[in-house]
């Protein structure tokens, strides 16, 4: 997919062959979250394009067990979960580049293939301590 490809047609094409079930765990809160609704709408639209994609909604305030299990502190947030949790998260409304990234991460999780070089994968596989990576992005 090209950067900026965010139209329904592009998404549909990208998501026609999702190789395995992927769950989008969507963290929301009822009050004080202006972007939770638009984020949920994007998540629903993405999920509507593939039978392999399911959405599970978690309330940031009420569902403390789930919130703790996924290590989420804010809403809106999306955890991309395959056979197991991958540790991949999106915070905020996935628009523009972030929507492209979300779709790409769904495809990666479904395929189980990171797309990284063998060298990179060998280095990463040796990691035995927690590493938290936060990438700050904008839609454009």
């Amino acid at each position, binding site marked *: 997919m090209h950067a900026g490809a965010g139209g329904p047609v592009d998404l549909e094409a990208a998501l026609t062959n999702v190789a395995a079930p992927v769950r989008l765990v969507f963290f929301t809160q009822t009050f004080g979250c202006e972007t939770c609704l638009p984020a949920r709408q994007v998540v629903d639209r993405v999920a509507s394009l593939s039978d392999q994609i399911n959405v599970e909604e978690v309330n940031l305030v009420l569902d403390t067990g789930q919130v703790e299990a996924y290590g989420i502190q804010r809403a809106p947030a999306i955890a991309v979960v395959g056979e*197991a949790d991958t*540790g991949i998260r*999106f915070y*905020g409304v996935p628009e523009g580049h972030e929507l492209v990234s979300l779709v790409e991460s769904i495809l990666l999780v479904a395929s189980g293939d990171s797309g990284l070089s063998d060298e990179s994968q060998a*280095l990463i596989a040796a*990691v035995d*301590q927690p590493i*938290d990576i936060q*990438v700050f992005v904008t839609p454009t």
Partner: protein
Amino acid sequence: MALVSPHITASAVAAVEYPDLVRQYRVTGVPKTVVNDRVEILGAVPEASFVSQVLAAAVA
């Protein structure tokens, strides 16, 4: 990287929606990567360089 290791979590944060985090991590441009709350990687860097910088953070 998160896909390869169960020890790694990776988050994309919409900068405009989280001004508190932008302040906390002094984000002045994107993409900006923050590893384990302290190591910073600015801009888009080649895969091998990115991986080595991230892994260096684990032992820093």
